[in-house]
């Protein structure tokens, strides 16, 4: 089975400060990890993914995430927060060892973290 935990329902950060949104995962094999963001009345927008290689991956809008296998974590980070970063953030995982030769197709999501950047 595959699962994701986002331990914080709400994160508040002052504009200009660094931000971190936490995510831990559980898979039986090796993970593919994703971050999505949801703005009001919009769909889930892809931010970044970890497949293999460098543990630090960079994505859209200045976001990055660090894969830590020993801690089974994939925390989302940004060095300097903008008010426009305020949104709902979802971490998701796929177990590459499940499913067909193409891998497990379904994404398993966390419950989401609401990020509020305070001006």
């Amino acid at each position, binding site marked *: 089975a595959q699962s994701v935990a986002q331990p914080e329902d709400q994160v508040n950060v002052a504009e200009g400060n660094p931000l971190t949104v936490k995510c831990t995962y559980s898979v039986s094999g090796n993970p*593919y990890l*994703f971050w*999505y963001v949801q703005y009001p*009345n*919009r*769909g*889930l*927008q*892809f931010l970044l*993914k970890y*497949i293999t290689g460098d543990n630090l991956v960079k994505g859209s809008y200045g976001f990055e995430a660090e894969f830590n296998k020993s801690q089974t974590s994939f925390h989302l980070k940004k060095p300097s927060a903008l008010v426009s970063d305020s949104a709902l953030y*979802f971490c*998701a995982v*796929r*177990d*590459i060892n499940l*499913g*067909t030769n*193409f*891998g*497990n*197709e*379904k*994404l*398993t*999501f*966390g*419950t*989401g973290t609401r990020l509020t950047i305070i001006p």
Partner: protein
Amino acid sequence: EPEVTQTPSHQVTQMGQEVILRCVPISNHLYFYWYRQILGQKVEFLVSFYNNEISEKSEIFDDQFSVERPDGSNFTLKIRSTKLEDSAMYFCASSRDRGAYNEQFFGPGTRLTVL
């Protein structure tokens, strides 16, 4: 930038009625998905679809649910006889390629309210 679109944005129906939720995936995408999110809960996978066949489905996707690609652009989710517990936000997604490393692109969702 191409987007996945969904209609309607909000659907209200009576328990026992049939509903059809519509999605237009990104035009060169070949793999399609439905997810749902009950208020306050996780986004949950329902079904994946490729080449006019279901390729994977969850335990939620029972006989009351069906999916179809009726033409070259639309992808639909039908709920045959809605229950109160079907009230949720339903998200359509598509991806260009198959493989667990491919990101899926999501639509804005349809909020289904069953009374």
